[in-house]
């Protein structure tokens, strides 16, 4: 699968690149779902000793066992497979907190995964020049309800229902790096009950 081509977008949305192996003492790779393909893609250009200095944190989501065997076959020094970002959050923050100079960070997969891990890395003082990103897989969005502030993960339709307060929200094309989320705004505020049919806009 090639890297995702996004349509021209707003200036608050991050631009994602393509992962490449960079010199470093340690390598932390955080991925979800099809992001595994970007990590596996590094193998061809990786020096022989790379994986012995690498910690992989992987959240397969709907891909289940598709990639976990191949990732393990890379023989990383540490490998964690977890059910959700929320579940892996403490481990990720702990890893950033204990990181030393010379760490290279590789984030790949959905925007929600990369955005949250990026925010955690920056908060821990990792220089942004040591962080790479590559989008893979679903373009589903992580949305913050501007009304109740609750986050709804993996939104694929517009409008959608806030998973916290139940309001019908439209997807505003505005992104906060701090929250790692797009903004959801009530769609029927001016005419309550008048909610257009849901359309799948992100896959």
């Amino acid at each position, binding site marked *: 699968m090639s890297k995702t081509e996004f349509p021209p977008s707003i200036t*608050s949305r991050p631009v994602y690149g393509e992962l490449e192996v960079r010199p470093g003492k340690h390598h932390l790779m955080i991925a979800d779902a099809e992001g595994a393909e970007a990590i596996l893609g590094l193998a061809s250009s990786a020096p022989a000793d790379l994986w012995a200095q690498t910690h992989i944190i992987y959240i397969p989501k709907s891909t289940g066992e598709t990639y976990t065997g191949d990732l393990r076959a890379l023989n990383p020094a540490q490998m964690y497979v977890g059910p959700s970002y929320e579940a892996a959050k403490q481990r990720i923050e702990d890893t950033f907190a204990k990181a030393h100079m010379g760490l290279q960070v590789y984030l790949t997969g959905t925007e929600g995964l990369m955005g949250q891990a990026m925010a955690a890395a920056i908060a821990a003082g990792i220089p942004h020049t040591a962080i790479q990103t590559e989008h893979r897989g679903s373009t589903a969005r992580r949305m913050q309800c*501007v009304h109740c502030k609750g986050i709804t993960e993996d939104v694929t339709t517009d409008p959608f229902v806030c998973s916290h307060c139940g309001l019908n929200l439209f997807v505003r*094309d*505005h992104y*906060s*790096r701090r929250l790692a989320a797009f903004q959801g705004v*009530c769609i029927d*505020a001016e005419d309550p009950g008048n909610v257009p049919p849901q359309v799948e806009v992100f896959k």
Partner: protein
Amino acid sequence: MTIQFNDETFRDDFTFRNSPEAIKRFPFPFHEDSYMYSVNLEPHVALKRPGSPFEFAFDVDEHYVSEMADRAKVLADDPLRCQSLPHMTLAGWDLVEYIMEAKARDYPDLFELHKDGDRWRWINKPLGIDDTFTFLDESTLPYGPMEYITRQTQGDFALLDQRDDNLWMDAGMVTTQADWSLDFDIGMNFFEWHAPVPKAHEMGIFVRALKFLLNLQQGAPVRRLNWTMTVNPLLDTSPENYHKWGEMKSKLTMDNIGEKQHLRVELQTLFRLPRSNAICFPIRCYLCSFNDLVSVPKWGRRLHRVIRDLPEELAEYKGFIANRPLMIEWLSQYDDGAPTSDGIFPDE
């Protein structure tokens, strides 16, 4: 000067009113019969018009006391409307000094500032405040410095940190906003927080404006006017509460539009702060009903022409596209086609 402060509300029963004097000094934002974006920044210096909202650094008007009461209610309901990232505390103190000195100088009958070294005594007569505190010591104020002084100053405030050749919205007090969320936008740079504005990016507006602002000097503040439309004199047109106030926008008729529809004008000023090198960006909201606007014949004619000819995207972005036909129909009664004079002020 002595100001008679109104006892009025900006919610529920909406008792807000402009006195005849307030209408005359309203900062009408259109200097000609059409409107398009521009980098319309000019020096924030006093005009030779005593009593205008451009006379002083921070305008205090008849709505002051009631606006501050409304702000306190908004903050009680949602404390996230006031936030300051940890590195912005010094900029907050800069703001305390800037506002206190300006108000004590410009309105000596209302505000007093007495300094004894770092021990400062601040007297705010309209709000009944008499506090003594130690400058730069947070523990001597009841709130953080930015929150303390902006609970006593009309208008929203954003404090912009300057680094990496950009401006970062890293602190703010935002309770009277035209549909943007501080809680969402805090920490963003200049291009990021303007991302949802249509057309202006392609026009190069933000690149030019940022270049100008990065070079803003101490003692040389600038200002511009911006505008939108609000149904009822509602100060808190926040996205947070949009699901509560949005329905009011669909209640306009030919009979009530003159009373309910308000032109919402933002007097935006920008000041360089001395210690932090941050930029203080106050966004002061003035409201005026259509009825009151058309009492000035020049404004009635001009508003009709501006609204009629405004590009579709702007009416959409400013959130009044659905009500525009009704506005044009009502306003056309006040446009006899006569020419209008240049500039924003009423004809004498």
